[in-house]
């Protein structure tokens, strides 16, 4: 006889989401639904009629965590629609911005994951804010990596949080030789730190994998060897940057994408009949409360080839680097493996960058209403923006953000895990829920995506 447990709200990520879990008598999840409860906001509607310069700026404000990914995907979706090729040096600057953003984001996610983990050889959980060694030096290294990522992002992007330098047609400004030298120094410093951080984190995750149990809210919970396993596919468009419909060989295929309503995918109305007041933080939802995931979920459910897919670090490693480790720990380790590449990526791009080169296209067409898309490999996964621009104004705009792709996939990955570890599985995906909220329901005959992308 299965019981229902609800963890709401989930913690240690952006936005509001909850877990509704059907569990068996041993507390093992038979079916898990992870859903966003952040209200729908309709950025797509707001974008219509605005200029193509305004819309990426609006997209950047959708979320406090991923402004860089949304700016780049937004700008490139406009460029894809109008058919504008940007100069090489502008691409290199965007690449640097991408790597700097990933460096900061993965580092902050370490702070998010560490409290679930143990100091190797002990039963002591890690507190990333402790002033004591050995954790203090790790925390300082994480802070330094974040600071370097943010500083480089600010130099190249114009502002540290919502980048102002990227624009339709390239970038507003190239960087000065002095700024280039400064970024070099920072990237060289981060190269060493990123390597050390990767090795440390992998050791911590491997240690967790070897453990038999984890303590959650005063209960010792067995850690299954297949924690977070799922059989869904992966979707990624590049190891680092992304792809767009302007590419010679685009890596994302709109015709393979469909979306269903939460009603068709999530479980119906249930009543909570198991609760644990000691579960961190503040206990689970009390017994007797009703939950109705298919009505409460605020996102559509995007499918690729008719199935939910995983996006993010492991998807990138699996598709481009033959990485094959499944489960939550496999996903976490794949993320750490991207650390050094962020620093080397910046250095390689700087080597190729000509600071006196032009960073703006000679001609910026105003668009004829063709559909263009751009996928940016954000830290959390593929962030796809679609746009139609006509005479400089946006006629259609859509955002398919990483966590929206991961919601249904992670829900599948919960099956077989003890319910008290559901959040550990969820956090593996580095959720960013606030921008995962959108409602883009495509009509039955797929009119939107069936059009020829490049006229």
């Amino acid at each position, binding site marked *: 006889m299965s019981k229902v447990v609800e963890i709401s709200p989930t913690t*240690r990520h952006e936005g509001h989401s909850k877990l509704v879990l059907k569990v068996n008598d041993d507390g093992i999840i038979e079916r898990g639904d992870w859903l966003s409860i952040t209200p729908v906001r309709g950025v797509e509607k707001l974008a219509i009629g605005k200029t193509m310069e305004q819309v990426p700026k609006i997209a950047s404000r959708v979320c406090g965590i991923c402004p860089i990914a949304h700016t780049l995907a937004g700008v490139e979706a406009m460029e894809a629609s109008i058919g504008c090729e940007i100069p090489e040096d502008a691409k290199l600057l965007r690449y640097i911005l991408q790597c700097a953003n990933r460096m900061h984001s993965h580092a902050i996610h370490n702070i998010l994951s560490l409290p679930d983990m143990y100091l190797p050889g002990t039963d002591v959980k890690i507190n990333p804010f402790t002033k004591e060694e050995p954790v203090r030096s790790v925390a300082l290294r994480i802070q330094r990596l974040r600071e370097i990522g943010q*500083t480089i992002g600010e130099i190249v992007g114009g502002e540290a*949080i919502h980048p102002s330098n990227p624009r339709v047609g390239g970038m507003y400004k190239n960087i000065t030789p002095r700024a280039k030298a400064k970024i070099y120094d920072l990237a060289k410093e981060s190269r060493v730190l990123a390597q050390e951080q990767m090795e440390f984190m992998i050791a911590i995750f491997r240690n967790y994998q070897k453990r038999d149990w984890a303590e959650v809210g005063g209960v010792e919970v067995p850690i299954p060897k297949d924690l977070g396993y799922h059989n869904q596919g992966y979707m990624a468009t590049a190891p680092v940057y992304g792809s767009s419909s302007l590419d010679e060989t685009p890596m994302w295929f709109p015709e393979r994408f469909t979306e269903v309503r939460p009603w068709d995918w999530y479980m119906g109305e249930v009543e909570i009949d198991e609760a644990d007041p000691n579960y961190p933080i503040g206990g689970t939802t009390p017994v007797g409360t009703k939950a109705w995931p298919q009505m409460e979920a605020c996102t559509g459910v995007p499918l690729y080839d008719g199935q939910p897919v995983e996006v993010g670090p492991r998807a990138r490693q699996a598709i481009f680097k033959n990485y094959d480790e499944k489960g939550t720990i496999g996903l976490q380790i794949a993320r750490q493996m991207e650390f050094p590449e962020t620093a080397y990526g910046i250095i390689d791009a700087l080597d190729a960058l000509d600071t006196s080169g032009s960073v703006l296209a000679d001609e910026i067409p105003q668009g004829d209403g063709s559909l263009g898309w751009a996928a940016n490999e954000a830290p959390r996964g593929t962030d796809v923006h679609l746009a139609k621009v006509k005479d400089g104004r946006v006629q259609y705009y859509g955002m398919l953000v990483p966590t929206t792709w991961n919601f249904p996939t992670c829900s599948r990955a919960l099956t077989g895990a003890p319910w008290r570890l559901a959040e550990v599985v969820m956090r593996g995906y580095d959720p960013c829920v606030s921008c995962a909220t959108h409602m883009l329901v495509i009509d039955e005959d797929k009119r939107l995506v069936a059009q020829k992308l490049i006229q």
Partner: protein
Amino acid sequence: MLFREIVIAGCGNPLYGDDGFGPAVVEELQKLQLPDNVKVVDAGLGAPHFLFTLMEDAEVPVKKLIIIDIADFGANPGDVTKLRPEDLPPGAYRDAHSWDLSEPLQRLKDIIDITIIGCQPKRVASHEFELGLTEEVEEAIPKTVRIVLEEIGVEYGAAINHQGTHLWASPGETTGDAGKKPGEQA
């Protein structure tokens, strides 16, 4: 340099009506020539984790932090107040990534002098995005800029009072919107 001695952060989301107040004030501040030890940041929604959690161990120590945001303190729309971190309700500026729901400002307040300048909003959209500030909140921008400059000890009042269309414009003159002649009183 990510930070300087004085950091002024405009917080809020322009996609939610009056919540765009902080970034709008920052936009005005960025037009001014401020001392080298001052950094003005449009923090948008990312202040807690992009700024506050990084300040503790920053390369350049921050001594003073001024946050500009909307605050519901039961006043008339457009009224402005000064708050200290002690006045904040639990949950304000909570970092989405904090693991124990700790509040970064409460950790920072012992090492950094923190002032929050709050403006009473009129309309904050809740479900659907909407751009633009209400008139009352728009009018609070110059006042807030003056308060910020006073906080950091910069004499700029005269310049702000005279951002008209010409040097001899008087305060409150329009910039010649459609249907009005330049210089006509608003």
